[in-house]
């Protein structure tokens, strides 16, 4: 494996059982993540986009073993996170961090900021007592909070400030890799950019690698080096950000991009409005999962599932039409 690879995901599957009936028998599975493979390099930001229920958050949680996987491997620096013992995993948690979506439910309301941020330092035996307080204050100021905020409780802060506290809680451990699960989705527009810029600064300052999960394609474009687009538990397209936004290949990516409203009142945008809803992940369609909504469906799409293949220059797409050679849309 190359030295600069931080995470390598191989065929990760995560199914949730659906139990019904008197004896809670498992009658079906929600295929939340279905054979996803992905490589994340040191120092980059991988954007993971898709609509609700596409499995992006589940993938982020599963790869860190916050959810137990159904199958697959998650190699972090060549060690499979899934096969570690509970003790080893707990130790490794210091390096692998998670930023949560909801700044209101992600902070324990009964603890003050100093306890929230500093607790992990004690647990991992990194700092105690006065040294711990110093580290907490230092990290708070890095996250744009004042040292005197340390003794206050979460309810006194606004959503954006709470998200800063959440970020401070992860950064204080000096992690290597951070999964950010929709970190700005529940913030006001004027605050979103503050948090994104903060994350960008930390990336350089602390040498972080991010997996940035979002439904907001415009934010992902701004922050990511590579982007993976997910649909119904699978990766539909994966490419460098520049190539993906300049020349999207998968019909789903194209539709998704065209659906975002723009403030450019002069742009003569041709919008592709996809028909119908996203199918249920417990009963996915045959062949290509996207075929019932795709404007270019062919016979083959109904039967055969397209593989995620390189269509040139490290740009991967899972679409028969695109792969049929030069058939760029």
């Amino acid at each position, binding site marked *: 494996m190359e030295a600069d690879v931080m995470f390598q995901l191989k065929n990760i599957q995560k199914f949730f059982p659906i139990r019904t009936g008197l004896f809670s028998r498992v009658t079906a599975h929600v295929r939340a993540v279905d054979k996803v493979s992905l490589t994340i390099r040191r120092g980059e930001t991988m954007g993971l986009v898709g*609509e609700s229920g596409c499995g992006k958050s589940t993938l982020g949680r599963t790869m860190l073993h916050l959810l137990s996987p159904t199958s697959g491997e998650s190699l972090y620096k060549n060690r499979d996170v899934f096969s570690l013992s509970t003790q080893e995993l707990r130790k490794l948690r210091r390096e692998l961090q998670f930023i949560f979506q909801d700044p209101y439910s992600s902070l324990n309301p009964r603890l003050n900021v100093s306890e929230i941020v500093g607790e992990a330092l004690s647990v991992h035996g990194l700092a105690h007592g006065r040294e711990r307080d110093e580290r907490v204050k230092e990290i708070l100021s890095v996250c744009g909070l004042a040292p005197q905020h340390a003794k206050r409780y979460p309810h006194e802060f606004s959503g954006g400030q709470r998200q800063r506290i959440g970020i401070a809680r992860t950064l204080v451990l000096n992690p290597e890799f951070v999964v950010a699960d929709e970190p700005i989705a529940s913030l006001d*527009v004027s605050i979103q950019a503050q948090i994104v810029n903060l994350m960008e600064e930390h990336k350089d300052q602390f040498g972080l690698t991010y997996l940035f999960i979002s439904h907001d394609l*415009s934010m992902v474009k701004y922050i990511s080096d590579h982007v993976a687009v997910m649909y119904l538990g699978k990766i539909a397209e994966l490419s460098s950000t520049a190539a993906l936004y300049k020349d999207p290949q998968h019909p789903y990516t194209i539709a*998704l991009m065209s*659906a*975002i409203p723009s403030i*450019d009142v002069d742009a003569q945008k041709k919008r592709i409005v996809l028909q119908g809803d996203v199918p249920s992940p417990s009963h996915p369609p045959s062949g290509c999962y996207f075929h019932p909504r795709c404007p270019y469906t062919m016979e083959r799409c109904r039967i055969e599932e397209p593989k995620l293949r390189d269509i040139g220059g490290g740009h991967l797409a899972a679409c028969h039409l695109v792969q049929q050679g030069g058939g760029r849309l």
Partner: protein
Amino acid sequence: MGVNELLQVTNLSSSFQTEDGLVRAVRDVSFHISHGESLGIVGESGCGKSVTCLSVMRLMEQNGRIEADSMRFEGRDLLSLRERQMQKIRGNEMAMIFQEPMTSFNPVFTIGFQLQEAIRLHQGLNKKAARNASIDMLKQVGIPRPEKINDEYPHALSGGMRQRAMIAMAISCRPKLIFADEPTTALDVTIQAQILELMQKLQQEIHTAVVFISHDLGVIAEMSERVMVMYAGRIVEIAGRRNLFKDPKHPYTIGLIRSKPDMEIESPVLTPIPGTVPNPLHTPPGCPYHPRCEHVMDICRSTLPELISHEQMHQVRCWLYDQQGAVHGS
């Protein structure tokens, strides 16, 4: 202000009492909307955009208090109407679409039952005719298999379908004015695109005026001919869509536009607005935006600027501009 005015609101203020004190959610808001026009209200949480609409419909919570110099809907003074008369206007001539349709439908009745109830109440049709009308409405909002969906309960529908049904409910009585309060915020972008397209189509077909509320500038840019920007309960800028997005005047509007990347416009850096949205209990003195404003001057800290006409149909509340529209300061 022509004769074509559908709704004319002058100096509306709304407040409500909470445990921690009086929240003045809307302050001196004046606006008008003509027949068939679309007006967008944009702003962040707590800016008073929803309360403005609830006040016009007189749907404020019981501890709420509405004051206005006048609030005229087709010449009728909404403030002096009795609750019974107001009920007739609501649903019949004015309707509302909410963010989360799950909570606006009663979960124990079918979609059809609730639609038919509204239709029969306001149009006086018999049962059979109402059922047909309800199925027609569902068809009109693009719901597949309307006969079947008519007999479904709300939980059986997806978010997008429920929002379509909600729209069917709102337009069932051909209202003259629809308030759409963040109708697509809970939906995915591809579903949002469907709903926005539907609303544009319907607005043309039935020639309804729409007040579209959103925090998303892009959605507002697509849905509204005129846009009103609110901050801390006040209007800070009103302009036609083109003027507002191409030539925004108020530092807050400019800040909002700069803080969000756009798919069509290349922007190498994001410039956030510093600080936080003010707590409605402690609105800053003077111009409420002054603690976050990059052009802040002494006068901004003490005195609230008036909403002045900068150009025709372009009003702004900011000390950077005087009555003649010349620019002060830097």
